[in-house]
């Protein structure tokens, strides 16, 4: 997922956008597609999206900013998303999160997520694209070592 994003290419992006423009309610699918390609929605994409989907640029900005998934800047190489919702709270996710929080750096983002649907194996986390159950400080350290993102 991360690390395999393309360099911005307006022509290719336009082709991606136009390929989806006729889908009803195309904006979210378009933004997801750009995310898949570029890891974020570059500023340059906004006018292209707006024109292709017959939206105003303001609307596109409004939608991007509403959804926490959509980024305006390239992502760090790795992301660990720790679930901090109730089921995971009951199993001590907070300690794991606090443990990881200090590890944030240019190569690693530690983010909060509310529920990964793995509440029976709480605490849960998503290490890049891998879902991890029964997450713990030990598992967190192992993940950091594997990602090579230990500060």
């Amino acid at each position, binding site marked *: 997922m991360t690390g395999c994003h393309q360099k911005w290419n307006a022509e290719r992006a336009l082709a991606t956008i136009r390929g989806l423009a006729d889908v009803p309610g195309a904006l979210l699918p378009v933004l997801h597609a750009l995310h898949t390609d570029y890891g974020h929605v570059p500023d340059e994409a906004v006018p292209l999206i707006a024109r292709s989907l017959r939206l105003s640029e303001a609307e596109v900005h409004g939608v991007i900013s509403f959804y926490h998934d959509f980024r305006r800047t390239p992502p760090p190489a790795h992301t660990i998303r720790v679930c901090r919702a109730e089921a*995971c709270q*009951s199993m001590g996710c907070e300690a794991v999160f606090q443990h990881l929080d200090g590890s944030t750096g240019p190569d690693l983002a530690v983010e909060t997520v509310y529920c990964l*649907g793995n*509440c029976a194996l709480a605490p849960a986390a998503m290490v890049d694209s891998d879902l991890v159950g029964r997450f713990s400080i030990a598992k967190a350290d192992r993940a950091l070592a594997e990602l090579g993102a230990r500060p």
Partner: protein
Amino acid sequence: MKVYVPRDAAALSVGAEAVARAIARLGPDAEIVRTGSRGMFWLEPLVEIETPAGRVGYGPVEPETVSSIFDGTHPNALGLVEDLPYLKNQERVTFVRCGVTDPLSIADYRAHGGFRGLETARNMAPAAIVEAVLQSGLRGRGGAGFPCGIKWRTVLNEPADQKYIVCNADEGDSGNYADRMLMEGDPFLLIEGMIIAGLAVGANQGYIYVRSEYPHAFRTLNDAVAIARDAGYLQGFDIDVRLGAGAYICGEETALLESLEGRRGQVRPKPPLPAISGLFGKPTVVNNVLTLAAVPTILDKGAEFYRDLGMGRSRGTLAIQLAGNVKHAGLVEKAFGITLREAIYDFGGGTASGRPLRAVQVGGPLGAYFPESLLDTPLDYEAFAARKGMLGHGGVVVFDDTVDLARQARFAMEFCAIESCGKCTPCRVGSTRGVETIDKIIGTHEPAKNLELLRDLCDLMVDGSLCAMGGLTPYPVLSALQHFPEDFAR
């Protein structure tokens, strides 16, 4: 030799993939079938081996111990899986194939009774299908418990050139994972339910809106839809699987519709009901995954079969999802009516930590915190409502005695502040003020005055909010205040 290894996200999260690889390596003649999960998550990865007597289970299995499952010496041998009391004591209707079949095998699905409901429905008039659903007593499983048949009837009777079936698969409530389990473990059931819904109301297009936190479910659904389309099941009614983008509020049906239309997921006022003016302004059925997944059974086995399960006005089965600090966390499908205590102790085996249970939150982050003294409440919409709680989607999150309910109350407000769409004032501003006010109470800054203010704020949010997000956020707060006042005065 057939070996069954789950591909459910939860199983994968504890190493099912490595186990499957180890099996392939060590047992080259093993025919590995990837299934959904049985829902006994404490046993994951749960490996089952087909024997003449039935499927015997081993779990949890680690890659290092795989070799011992072939000779039956694995320390975690479970015997016949179907005979495990946890499964045996359930009434599996919706989840009957989950963990049993290959979720992406249409042949497997048919072999296990799939598409029988659809075949029945194809020979019925739309109104008759709606009537069957109405008679079954099926209520929306998303939380509000609105009678499904009435919604369908409204859509059926609304004249329009275009109607839609929208599956709300934005299951964002902590402690709830039944939708995910079903989408990953038996996606054709949902597809079948949607096709039937389309027949019933005259819709030709369906959308499944899946939250982005469920990448496995998204992939499985996409694959399943493609397979169903190739197999000719989606002629005249097609399904598009759409991905959310990190907004809890999009589980609210009108926000979901806005999101599907490509807009900010802001809540729409009702009226108009989505059944009259929904997606792109057209009459739309918006149903939860489990609601739609219950439909094929109703058509196949008859409305009576379904209606005969349950209690009071809560008919059929409930997917109880034991989660959090519970020993045997997992999915328990039972007819409505067992008590919370039975679920947590008889099935769940008490807390995982072994410490005393102090609080249970049922129904997700907007559900009330119940103390031990309310554990005998039956799992029934009305019974919960009578105790100022909410059965919701059936998620049960267990907390032991280390929990601080003032913190949990604060979190409820904080969660609302983070996830509010921001449209209405009680929710947009109120949630932030709620966090601040609870902080003042916890910090013993004029606690009496601020407690009164907090209660006023909760009343305002309950009565004044535009949707259930703001309207229900006070439930965990007020229940914490009511049942655990001592936590606010430490």
